[in-house]
Protein backbone atom coordinates (compact mmCIF):
# COMPACT_ATOMS: atom_id res chain seq x y z
CA UNK A 1 0.00 0.00 0.00
CA UNK A 2 1.12 3.55 -0.71
CA UNK A 3 0.09 6.04 1.92
CA UNK A 4 0.49 9.79 1.57
CA UNK A 5 0.16 11.61 4.90
CA UNK A 6 -0.44 15.36 5.20
CA UNK A 7 1.69 16.17 2.18
CA UNK A 8 2.30 19.82 1.34
CA UNK A 9 4.57 21.15 -1.37
CA UNK A 10 5.69 24.68 -2.20
CA UNK A 11 7.58 26.11 -5.13
CA UNK A 12 9.23 29.26 -3.88
CA UNK A 13 6.57 31.12 -1.93
CA UNK A 14 3.72 29.45 -3.80
CA UNK A 15 1.97 26.58 -2.02
CA UNK A 16 1.07 24.00 -4.66
CA UNK A 17 -0.17 21.08 -2.58
CA UNK A 18 -1.72 21.40 0.85
CA UNK A 19 -2.40 18.56 3.29
CA UNK A 20 -2.83 15.78 0.77
CA UNK A 21 -3.87 12.45 2.27
CA UNK A 22 -4.43 9.42 0.10
CA UNK A 23 -3.97 5.68 0.03
CA UNK A 24 -3.45 3.33 -2.89
CA UNK A 25 -3.89 -0.37 -2.18
CA UNK A 26 -2.57 -3.37 -4.06
CA UNK A 27 -4.66 -4.08 -7.17
CA UNK A 28 -5.95 -0.51 -7.25
CA UNK A 29 -5.86 2.17 -9.90
CA UNK A 30 -5.89 5.71 -8.54
CA UNK A 31 -6.72 8.54 -10.92
CA UNK A 32 -5.70 12.04 -9.88
CA UNK A 33 -8.04 14.66 -11.26
CA UNK A 34 -7.98 18.40 -11.09
CA UNK A 35 -7.66 21.49 -13.23
CA UNK A 36 -4.41 22.22 -15.05
CA UNK A 37 -1.73 23.73 -12.85
CA UNK A 38 -3.18 22.38 -9.62
CA UNK A 39 -0.28 20.05 -8.90
CA UNK A 40 -1.17 16.62 -10.32
CA UNK A 41 2.31 16.13 -11.81
CA UNK A 42 3.90 17.59 -8.69
CA UNK A 43 2.06 15.06 -6.53
CA UNK A 44 3.24 12.22 -8.77
CA UNK A 45 6.83 13.48 -8.56
CA UNK A 46 6.53 13.65 -4.78
CA UNK A 47 5.22 10.10 -4.56
CA UNK A 48 8.10 8.85 -6.74
CA UNK A 49 10.55 10.66 -4.45
CA UNK A 50 11.89 12.74 -7.30
CA UNK A 51 11.27 15.93 -5.36
CA UNK A 52 11.04 16.62 -1.66
CA UNK A 53 7.78 17.72 -0.03
CA UNK A 54 7.60 20.75 2.22
CA UNK A 55 5.76 18.71 4.84
CA UNK A 56 4.31 15.26 5.18
CA UNK A 57 5.42 11.72 4.59
CA UNK A 58 4.90 9.01 2.01
CA UNK A 59 5.01 5.33 2.90
CA UNK A 60 5.21 2.16 0.84
CA UNK A 61 4.24 -1.07 2.64
CA UNK A 62 4.62 0.78 5.95
CA UNK A 63 8.14 2.06 5.26
CA UNK A 64 8.91 5.67 4.52
CA UNK A 65 10.01 5.93 0.90
CA UNK A 66 13.68 6.68 0.38
CA UNK A 67 15.72 6.69 -2.84
CA UNK A 68 16.40 2.95 -2.64
CA UNK A 69 12.74 2.00 -2.14
CA UNK A 70 11.72 4.45 -4.88
CA UNK A 71 14.12 2.93 -7.42
CA UNK A 72 12.96 -0.60 -6.57
CA UNK A 73 9.27 0.24 -6.54
CA UNK A 74 8.30 2.92 -9.03
CA UNK A 75 8.21 3.14 -12.77
CA UNK A 76 7.53 6.73 -13.73
CA UNK A 77 6.28 7.62 -17.18
CA UNK A 78 6.01 11.38 -17.60
CA UNK A 79 4.62 13.59 -20.30
CA UNK A 80 7.98 14.17 -21.97
CA UNK A 81 9.72 11.69 -24.18
CA UNK A 82 13.05 10.82 -22.56
CA UNK A 83 14.67 9.17 -25.56
CA UNK A 84 17.73 10.36 -27.46
CA UNK A 85 16.77 11.99 -30.75
CA UNK A 86 19.97 11.06 -32.55
CA UNK A 87 19.77 7.35 -31.73
CA UNK A 88 17.60 4.91 -33.66
CA UNK A 89 14.46 3.48 -32.10
CA UNK A 90 16.23 0.15 -31.67
CA UNK A 91 19.21 1.75 -29.92
CA UNK A 92 16.91 3.72 -27.65
CA UNK A 93 15.04 0.55 -26.70
CA UNK A 94 18.33 -1.21 -25.85
CA UNK A 95 19.61 1.78 -23.90
CA UNK A 96 16.54 2.34 -21.74
CA UNK A 97 16.02 -1.35 -21.05
CA UNK A 98 19.68 -1.51 -19.95
CA UNK A 99 19.21 1.54 -17.72
CA UNK A 100 16.28 -0.22 -16.04
CA UNK A 101 18.35 -3.42 -15.84
CA UNK A 102 15.81 -5.44 -17.83
CA UNK A 103 17.11 -8.90 -18.70
CA UNK A 104 14.51 -10.74 -20.70
CA UNK A 105 15.01 -13.44 -23.26
CA UNK A 106 15.35 -12.15 -26.79
CA UNK A 107 12.03 -13.69 -27.84
CA UNK A 108 10.02 -11.87 -25.13
CA UNK A 109 11.75 -8.63 -26.04
CA UNK A 110 10.99 -9.14 -29.74
CA UNK A 111 7.34 -10.05 -29.05
CA UNK A 112 6.84 -6.93 -26.94
CA UNK A 113 8.45 -4.72 -29.56
CA UNK A 114 6.33 -6.36 -32.25
CA UNK A 115 3.16 -5.80 -30.19
CA UNK A 116 3.75 -2.06 -29.95
CA UNK A 117 5.85 -1.16 -32.97
CA UNK A 118 4.25 -3.36 -35.61
CA UNK A 119 5.16 -1.96 -39.03
CA UNK A 120 7.58 0.65 -37.67
CA UNK A 121 11.14 0.66 -38.97
CA UNK A 122 13.27 0.18 -35.86
CA UNK A 123 16.31 1.63 -37.65
CA UNK A 124 14.61 5.02 -37.93
CA UNK A 125 16.16 7.83 -35.94
CA UNK A 126 14.02 8.72 -32.96
CA UNK A 127 13.40 12.29 -34.12
CA UNK A 128 11.90 10.94 -37.35
CA UNK A 129 9.09 9.20 -35.48
CA UNK A 130 5.64 10.66 -34.91
CA UNK A 131 4.55 11.79 -31.44
CA UNK A 132 2.43 8.67 -30.96
CA UNK A 133 5.24 6.35 -32.04
CA UNK A 134 7.62 8.10 -29.64
CA UNK A 135 5.14 7.64 -26.83
CA UNK A 136 5.12 3.89 -27.46
CA UNK A 137 8.70 3.62 -26.22
CA UNK A 138 7.34 4.58 -22.81
CA UNK A 139 4.69 1.88 -23.09
CA UNK A 140 7.39 -0.65 -23.88
CA UNK A 141 8.97 0.09 -20.52
CA UNK A 142 5.58 -0.57 -18.89
CA UNK A 143 5.54 -3.98 -20.54
CA UNK A 144 9.10 -5.02 -19.73
CA UNK A 145 10.20 -3.23 -16.55
CA UNK A 146 8.90 -5.20 -13.62
CA UNK A 147 8.14 -2.79 -10.80
CA UNK A 148 5.14 -2.98 -8.46
CA UNK A 149 3.94 0.60 -8.86
CA UNK A 150 3.34 2.52 -12.06
CA UNK A 151 3.16 6.28 -11.91
CA UNK A 152 1.75 7.63 -15.14
CA UNK A 153 1.46 11.29 -16.02
CA UNK A 154 -1.16 11.81 -18.71
CA UNK A 155 -0.40 8.51 -20.45
CA UNK A 156 -3.21 8.78 -23.02
CA UNK A 157 -2.17 12.17 -24.38
CA UNK A 158 -1.42 12.07 -28.11
CA UNK A 159 -2.19 8.38 -28.56
CA UNK A 160 -4.51 6.88 -31.16
CA UNK A 161 -7.46 4.65 -30.18
CA UNK A 162 -5.44 1.47 -30.74
CA UNK A 163 -2.63 2.63 -28.46
CA UNK A 164 -5.09 3.85 -25.82
CA UNK A 165 -6.66 0.37 -25.84
CA UNK A 166 -3.23 -1.22 -25.49
CA UNK A 167 -2.25 0.93 -22.54
CA UNK A 168 -5.66 0.32 -20.94
CA UNK A 169 -5.09 -3.42 -21.33
CA UNK A 170 -1.66 -3.09 -19.70
CA UNK A 171 -3.13 -1.16 -16.78
CA UNK A 172 -5.89 -3.76 -16.33
CA UNK A 173 -3.31 -6.56 -16.30
CA UNK A 174 -1.27 -4.67 -13.74
CA UNK A 175 -4.40 -4.27 -11.61
CA UNK A 176 -5.22 -7.98 -11.89
CA UNK A 177 -1.67 -8.86 -10.85
CA UNK A 178 -2.07 -6.85 -7.64
CA UNK A 179 0.06 -3.99 -8.90
CA UNK A 180 -0.67 -0.36 -8.13
CA UNK A 181 -1.20 2.35 -10.71
CA UNK A 182 -1.38 6.07 -10.04
CA UNK A 183 -2.47 8.12 -13.03
CA UNK A 184 -2.81 11.85 -13.53
CA UNK A 185 -5.08 12.51 -16.47
CA UNK A 186 -7.79 14.98 -17.42
CA UNK A 187 -9.71 12.16 -19.16
CA UNK A 188 -11.70 9.40 -17.51
CA UNK A 189 -9.87 6.18 -18.38
CA UNK A 190 -11.96 3.33 -19.72
CA UNK A 191 -11.12 1.16 -16.73
CA UNK A 192 -13.71 -0.11 -14.33
CA UNK A 193 -13.38 0.25 -10.58
CA UNK A 194 -10.87 3.04 -10.50
CA UNK A 195 -10.58 5.35 -7.54
CA UNK A 196 -10.53 9.09 -8.07
CA UNK A 197 -8.73 11.73 -6.07
CA UNK A 198 -9.61 15.34 -6.75
CA UNK A 199 -6.85 17.87 -6.25
CA UNK A 200 -7.82 21.36 -5.25
CA UNK A 201 -5.43 23.67 -3.50
Amino acid at each position, binding site marked *: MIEVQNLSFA*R*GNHLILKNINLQVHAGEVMVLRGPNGHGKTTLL*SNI*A*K*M*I*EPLEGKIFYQGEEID*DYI*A*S*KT*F*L*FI*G*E*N*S*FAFDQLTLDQNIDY*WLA*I*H*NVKFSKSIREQSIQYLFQGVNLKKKYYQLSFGQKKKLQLLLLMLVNKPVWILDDPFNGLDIDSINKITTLILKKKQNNGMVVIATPQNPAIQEVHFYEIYC
Partner: protein
Amino acid sequence: MIKGSVFSFVLFCLLVISSTIFALALRHISFEIEIPMSFLWVMMFFISLIKVEKVYQSEFSESKLQQYMLSPFSLEVVIFIKNIFIYLNLIILFIFFSPILLIILNIELSYFIPINLLLSLSLLSIVFISSITSSLTVSKNNRLSITSVLTLPLFIPILIFSMALTDVIEFSGNKMYLFFIAYFLLNLAFSPLLTSFALKKLSI
Protein backbone atom coordinates in the same frame (compact mmCIF):
# COMPACT_ATOMS: atom_id res chain seq x y z
CA MET B 1 12.40 38.28 -15.10
CA ILE B 2 14.60 38.39 -18.24
CA LYS B 3 16.21 41.54 -16.89
CA GLY B 4 17.03 39.71 -13.65
CA SER B 5 18.49 36.72 -15.52
CA VAL B 6 20.68 38.92 -17.69
CA PHE B 7 21.84 40.80 -14.61
CA SER B 8 22.75 37.53 -12.86
CA PHE B 9 24.62 36.28 -15.90
CA VAL B 10 26.56 39.54 -16.33
CA LEU B 11 27.36 39.49 -12.63
CA PHE B 12 28.62 35.94 -12.90
CA CYS B 13 30.82 36.80 -15.91
CA LEU B 14 32.23 39.84 -14.14
CA LEU B 15 33.11 37.75 -11.10
CA VAL B 16 34.92 35.18 -13.21
CA ILE B 17 36.82 37.76 -15.23
CA SER B 18 37.75 39.71 -12.11
CA SER B 19 38.99 36.50 -10.49
CA THR B 20 41.22 35.92 -13.51
CA ILE B 21 42.61 39.43 -13.30
CA PHE B 22 43.10 38.88 -9.58
CA ALA B 23 45.02 35.71 -10.38
CA LEU B 24 47.18 37.62 -12.83
CA ALA B 25 47.79 40.43 -10.38
CA LEU B 26 49.23 38.02 -7.85
CA ARG B 27 51.94 37.02 -10.25
CA HIS B 28 54.51 38.80 -12.37
CA ILE B 29 52.66 39.62 -15.55
CA SER B 30 54.27 38.36 -18.68
CA PHE B 31 52.54 39.75 -21.73
CA GLU B 32 54.15 37.01 -23.77
CA ILE B 33 52.27 34.11 -22.28
CA GLU B 34 50.15 34.90 -19.22
CA ILE B 35 47.69 37.31 -20.83
CA PRO B 36 46.93 34.98 -23.76
CA MET B 37 46.86 32.03 -21.35
CA SER B 38 44.34 33.72 -19.07
CA PHE B 39 42.23 34.43 -22.14
CA LEU B 40 42.48 30.78 -23.19
CA TRP B 41 41.53 29.55 -19.73
CA VAL B 42 38.55 31.87 -19.32
CA MET B 43 37.34 30.85 -22.77
CA MET B 44 37.71 27.18 -21.92
CA PHE B 45 35.94 27.78 -18.65
CA PHE B 46 32.92 29.40 -20.30
CA ILE B 47 32.69 26.82 -23.08
CA SER B 48 32.78 24.00 -20.52
CA LEU B 49 30.23 25.66 -18.27
CA ILE B 50 27.85 26.27 -21.16
CA LYS B 51 28.28 22.73 -22.49
CA VAL B 52 27.66 21.09 -19.11
CA GLU B 53 24.70 23.41 -18.48
CA LYS B 54 23.23 22.51 -21.87
CA VAL B 55 23.55 18.75 -21.29
CA TYR B 56 21.98 18.87 -17.83
CA GLN B 57 19.27 21.28 -18.93
CA SER B 58 18.22 19.07 -21.84
CA GLU B 59 18.32 15.90 -19.72
CA PHE B 60 16.16 17.60 -17.10
CA SER B 61 13.61 19.04 -19.52
CA GLU B 62 13.35 15.75 -21.46
CA SER B 63 12.78 13.77 -18.25
CA LYS B 64 15.87 11.62 -18.74
CA LEU B 65 17.03 12.50 -15.24
CA GLN B 66 13.73 11.21 -13.83
CA GLN B 67 14.39 7.85 -15.44
CA TYR B 68 17.95 7.78 -14.10
CA MET B 69 16.67 8.60 -10.61
CA LEU B 70 14.35 5.60 -10.65
CA SER B 71 16.81 3.23 -12.32
CA PRO B 72 18.68 0.61 -10.29
CA PHE B 73 21.92 2.54 -10.81
CA SER B 74 22.78 5.23 -8.34
CA LEU B 75 22.42 8.76 -9.63
CA GLU B 76 25.98 9.53 -8.50
CA VAL B 77 27.36 6.86 -10.84
CA VAL B 78 25.23 8.15 -13.71
CA ILE B 79 26.51 11.69 -13.06
CA PHE B 80 30.11 10.49 -12.93
CA ILE B 81 29.81 8.67 -16.27
CA LYS B 82 27.97 11.60 -17.83
CA ASN B 83 30.67 14.04 -16.68
CA ILE B 84 33.45 11.84 -18.03
CA PHE B 85 31.75 11.72 -21.43
CA ILE B 86 31.27 15.50 -21.44
CA TYR B 87 34.96 15.83 -20.53
CA LEU B 88 36.08 13.55 -23.35
CA ASN B 89 33.87 15.43 -25.77
CA LEU B 90 35.36 18.77 -24.72
CA ILE B 91 38.98 17.70 -24.44
CA ILE B 92 39.02 16.22 -27.93
CA LEU B 93 37.60 19.49 -29.22
CA PHE B 94 40.18 21.57 -27.31
CA ILE B 95 43.16 19.43 -28.30
CA PHE B 96 42.02 19.51 -31.92
CA PHE B 97 41.70 23.29 -31.98
CA SER B 98 44.56 24.16 -29.63
CA PRO B 99 47.26 24.57 -32.35
CA ILE B 100 45.05 27.14 -34.08
CA LEU B 101 44.30 28.87 -30.77
CA LEU B 102 47.99 29.00 -29.87
CA ILE B 103 48.78 30.65 -33.19
CA ILE B 104 45.90 33.12 -32.82
CA LEU B 105 46.97 33.98 -29.26
CA ASN B 106 50.63 34.24 -30.31
CA ILE B 107 51.82 31.49 -27.96
CA GLU B 108 54.85 29.45 -28.98
CA LEU B 109 53.93 26.06 -30.40
CA SER B 110 56.62 24.46 -28.22
CA TYR B 111 54.19 24.99 -25.32
CA PHE B 112 51.63 22.74 -27.03
CA ILE B 113 52.20 19.66 -24.86
CA PRO B 114 52.43 21.34 -21.40
CA ILE B 115 49.45 23.56 -22.17
CA ASN B 116 47.32 20.63 -23.28
CA LEU B 117 48.41 18.53 -20.34
CA LEU B 118 47.46 21.25 -17.89
CA LEU B 119 44.29 21.96 -19.81
CA SER B 120 43.31 18.29 -19.66
CA LEU B 121 43.86 18.14 -15.91
CA SER B 122 42.09 21.38 -15.06
CA LEU B 123 39.21 20.65 -17.42
CA LEU B 124 38.37 17.53 -15.41
CA SER B 125 37.79 19.65 -12.32
CA ILE B 126 35.96 22.34 -14.30
CA VAL B 127 33.49 19.81 -15.74
CA PHE B 128 32.78 18.25 -12.35
CA ILE B 129 32.30 21.64 -10.65
CA SER B 130 30.17 22.83 -13.57
CA SER B 131 27.87 19.88 -13.02
CA ILE B 132 27.17 21.18 -9.51
CA THR B 133 26.48 24.65 -10.95
CA SER B 134 24.16 23.18 -13.57
CA SER B 135 22.27 21.06 -11.08
CA LEU B 136 21.63 24.17 -8.99
CA THR B 137 20.21 26.06 -11.93
CA VAL B 138 18.64 23.21 -13.89
CA SER B 139 15.08 24.00 -12.91
CA LYS B 140 13.32 26.24 -15.39
CA ASN B 141 12.38 28.64 -12.63
CA ASN B 142 15.93 28.85 -11.48
CA ARG B 143 17.91 29.18 -14.70
CA LEU B 144 20.86 31.60 -14.69
CA SER B 145 19.92 32.60 -11.20
CA ILE B 146 22.27 33.97 -8.59
CA THR B 147 22.65 30.46 -7.12
CA SER B 148 25.25 29.70 -9.79
CA VAL B 149 27.60 32.10 -7.98
CA LEU B 150 27.64 29.65 -5.05
CA THR B 151 30.09 27.41 -6.89
CA LEU B 152 32.33 30.24 -8.02
CA PRO B 153 34.85 29.85 -5.15
CA LEU B 154 35.46 26.30 -6.37
CA PHE B 155 36.63 27.59 -9.77
CA ILE B 156 38.99 30.24 -8.41
CA PRO B 157 41.84 27.87 -7.37
CA ILE B 158 41.85 26.40 -10.88
CA LEU B 159 42.07 29.85 -12.46
CA ILE B 160 44.77 31.02 -10.06
CA PHE B 161 46.92 27.92 -10.42
CA SER B 162 46.44 27.78 -14.16
CA MET B 163 48.07 31.18 -14.38
CA ALA B 164 51.20 29.59 -12.96
CA LEU B 165 51.63 27.75 -16.21
CA THR B 166 54.83 29.56 -17.02
CA ASP B 167 56.41 27.98 -13.93
CA VAL B 168 55.35 24.57 -15.15
CA ILE B 169 56.90 25.25 -18.50
CA GLU B 170 60.11 26.68 -17.11
CA PHE B 171 60.60 24.02 -14.43
CA SER B 172 59.47 20.73 -15.84
CA GLY B 173 57.99 18.26 -13.35
CA ASN B 174 56.55 21.07 -11.28
CA LYS B 175 54.21 20.18 -8.44
CA MET B 176 51.51 22.23 -10.13
CA TYR B 177 50.37 19.10 -11.93
CA LEU B 178 49.95 17.40 -8.59
CA PHE B 179 47.72 20.25 -7.45
CA PHE B 180 45.37 19.68 -10.37
CA ILE B 181 45.33 15.93 -9.83
CA ALA B 182 44.63 16.39 -6.10
CA TYR B 183 41.95 18.99 -6.81
CA PHE B 184 40.30 16.72 -9.34
CA LEU B 185 40.27 13.80 -6.89
CA LEU B 186 38.68 16.07 -4.32
CA ASN B 187 36.05 17.07 -6.86
CA LEU B 188 35.57 13.47 -7.83
CA ALA B 189 34.75 12.64 -4.22
CA PHE B 190 32.25 15.43 -3.69
CA SER B 191 30.78 16.73 -6.92
CA PRO B 192 28.73 13.64 -7.96
CA LEU B 193 27.26 13.61 -4.45
CA LEU B 194 26.53 17.33 -4.46
CA THR B 195 25.17 17.26 -8.02
CA SER B 196 22.91 14.34 -7.18
CA PHE B 197 21.73 16.04 -3.99
CA ALA B 198 20.97 19.29 -5.82
CA LEU B 199 19.10 17.47 -8.60
CA LYS B 200 16.96 15.55 -6.14
CA LYS B 201 16.30 18.22 -3.56
CA LEU B 202 16.54 21.54 -5.34
CA SER B 203 15.39 20.99 -8.92
CA ILE B 204 11.72 21.73 -8.34
